[in-house]
């Protein structure tokens, strides 16, 4: 039986404003949901609440000072953000980075990938609706990693430890032992998450077949990182364009099959296992040696009229730096290619037609860092 509603009875869709102050917008992201009952009809994202002009600020600071601004664009994976920047500067200055510095950079970047993914797992657990438990689990593991970073760089989030040419100073003497120690607890933490979430029937029900994006759409939208690989595209810059010594390391790139929220979760979890194995391989190859090039000018000046685009695989995807030099000790133009901004473009496509509760976990599964989106 079909019940026809009277022609003069019109319903209106409800507009809900989610953010910038909302428990699960991951910073100050704001989206306006147009909902019909519980179904999302339209989604309008608003960004820009965290715009600080980091790129422009870099133009007024020399290459040593710019590292600090890069930290603040990607505060959950600062080492990875610094890496792209210093690699861009090194490419233009034609600096040869010593071997030891490269290995330490690789270890720190992978450790930072771990800490960043732990942050994702914790926040995602809360988005899905577990009361605090995954968050505290993640925080415990992340704390161990951040303590290690603090011992090395003196800061818990804004490390400013990489320099064009190498590292700011030598790592502490017990660096290798400490890293191995942290990896033990990290392994246990990953196992805990596997038990807590991956095998939970309600978690599977909430995440499987939700927020699907196809490989073609993901590529068209310029997505990258785990969010792209979850859709089945095996693109990892560490593999396809190896930088540093990633070509000497044996690791695999986990990809998803379905492109849904669960795949984005499980790809990250599997990626963490690979990161642990990368770090262990790096530790075996770590030798003594200098950490800065022998002939390092006191004030770095780049040649005139050159430009470079360097991209690296940050935890959230392709973190690129476009650097134009017109001589002098400051960049003429610096542009950050943010993975989060590109990944966020898929939010509307993934969320429309899903439930309100799904829109929240889809946003969580993209794993944005808003200061990278807005810069």
């Amino acid at each position, binding site marked *: 039986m079909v019940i026809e509603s009277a022609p003069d009875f019109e319903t209106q869709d*409800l*507009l*809900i*404003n989610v953010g910038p102050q*909302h*428990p*699960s917008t991951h910073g100050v992201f704001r989206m306006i949901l147009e*909902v019909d009952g*519980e179904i999302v009809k339209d989604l309008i994202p608003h960004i820009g609440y965290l715009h600080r002009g980091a790129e422009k600020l870099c133009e007024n600071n020399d290459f040593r000072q710019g590292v600090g601004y890069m930290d603040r664009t990607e505060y959950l994976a600062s080492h990875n953000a610094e890496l792209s920047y210093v690699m861009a500067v090194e490419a233009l200055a034609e600096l040869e980075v010593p071997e030891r510095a490269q290995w330490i950079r690789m270890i720190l970047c992978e450790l930072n990938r771990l800490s960043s993914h732990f942050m994702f797992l914790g926040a995602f*657990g*809360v*988005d*899905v*609706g*577990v*009361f*605090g*438990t995954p968050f*505290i*689990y993640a925080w*415990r593991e992340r704390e161990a990693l951040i303590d290690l970073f603090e011992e090395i760089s003196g800061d818990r989030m804004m490390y400013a430890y990489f320099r064009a040419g190498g590292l700011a100073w030598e790592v502490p003497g017990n660096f290798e032992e400490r890293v191995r120690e942290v990896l033990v607890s990290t392994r246990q933490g990953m196992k805990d998450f596997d038990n*807590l*979430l991956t095998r*939970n*029937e*309600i*978690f*599977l*029900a*909430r995440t*499987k*077949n*939700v927020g699907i994006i196809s490989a073609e759409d993901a590529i068209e939208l310029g997505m990258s990182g785990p969010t792209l690989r979850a859709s089945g*595209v*095996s*693109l*990892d810059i560490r*593999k*396809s364009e190896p930088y540093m010594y990633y070509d000497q390391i*044996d*690791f*695999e*790139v*986990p*990809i*998803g*099959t*379905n492109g849904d929220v*669960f*795949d984005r979760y*499980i*790809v990250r979890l*599997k990626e963490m296992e690979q990161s642990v194995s990368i770090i262990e391989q790096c530790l075996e190859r770590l030798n003594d040696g200098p950490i800065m090039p022998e002939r390092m000018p006191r004030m770095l000046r780049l040649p005139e009229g050159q430009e470079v685009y360097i991209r690296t695989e940050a935890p959230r995807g392709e973190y690129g730096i476009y650097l134009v030099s017109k001589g002098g000790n400051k960049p003429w133009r610096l542009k950050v290619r943010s993975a989060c901004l590109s990944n966020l473009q898929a939010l509307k496509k993934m969320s429309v037609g899903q*439930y*309100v*509760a*799904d829109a*929240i976990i889809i946003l969580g599964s993209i794993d944005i860092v808003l200061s990278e989106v807005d810069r």
Partner: protein
Amino acid sequence: MNNGIYGIEIAWLDAVIRLHIIVGLMTVVVMGLIYVERKVLARFQQRLGPTRTGPAGLLQSVADGLKLVGKEDLRPRNADPWTFELAPYMVFIPVFLGFVIVPFAFGMQVRILELGLIYFVATSSLGIIGWVMAGWGSDNRYAMIGGMRAAAQGISYELPLVLSLISVAMVSESYNLNEIVLSQSTYPNLLWQPLVLVIFIIAGLAELNRTPFDIPVGESEVVGGPFVEYSGIRWSFFFLAEYAALFIMGLIFAAVFMGGWAWPLGEELGRGWQILLVTVKTSLFIFLIFWIRASVPRLRIDQLMAFSWKILLPLTFAQVLINGAVLVYDAPLWILTITGLVGIAVLVRLIERAVRPSPAISNEVVTAGNEGAS
């Protein structure tokens, strides 16, 4: 009709005194429950929980209460004044009405009602009106969505809850809680009704709006749902009602399934021991709920509805029919145990099919080899 057993002639005075004792006691119990929940959850999450207020943080609830009393009583400008301000009481009063029939020990209850179970279900479902009032009266879209969710959820889970209690009442041959407890002095009802026990716990979770059914108040989605605009003492009324409802549900669970004060030590026990027995059984239920809260995510509204209407309701109906057949033909009760266990197996099987939105696609995550990008 049952007042005679107390030995007090003026029935209404007797009832008033008992009710006062219970309401006073309940406030303390709720504060204790909040403290215990914070401690238990903290232990599940490798934290310490409250430690600073009083010895081992025991006074945390008191401090919280004082803070809430001291807060400004805010009302949004566009809120509907009457609906907004009456809603906390509409949630609070029905919950406390439920205490009228709860048997704490032999003869320790406000009133023995012949239709005690029906009375309990009737009062507990009245609270939903308060939720909808809070959601509508707040003039907030989150609150409205939360209120509507509460209404949908409350109505859907009322049915399995009622039917599960009815099927127990069939076995105990009474709606009177006192007689239900007495009938279990040798064997508790959970032996005969294992399926109904599981359904009662699930539907009870939904009725109490606890995880994984805390959809109306989901913090990460609707930011506290109907309570989002409430502050201070009004908000604490909601909180009080929530934990009081949890406690009542635990007491009903103890009385209906675990044999209350009668099982396993018989009914000749002293009053103190009976109260202890009931407390232990209630704590079991409450601890189970805290445990669930610490470990599972929240369901989505459509999954929740599908679960209630497509799984719980048919299964409880089936159980009621089987109960009827067994009782009418005087068959041995162990048949019910077997059908109940079979029912649990069916339930577990069905959960996967109803909760998942569409046929599961292979969750294999392949790993690409070392040959590079495709």
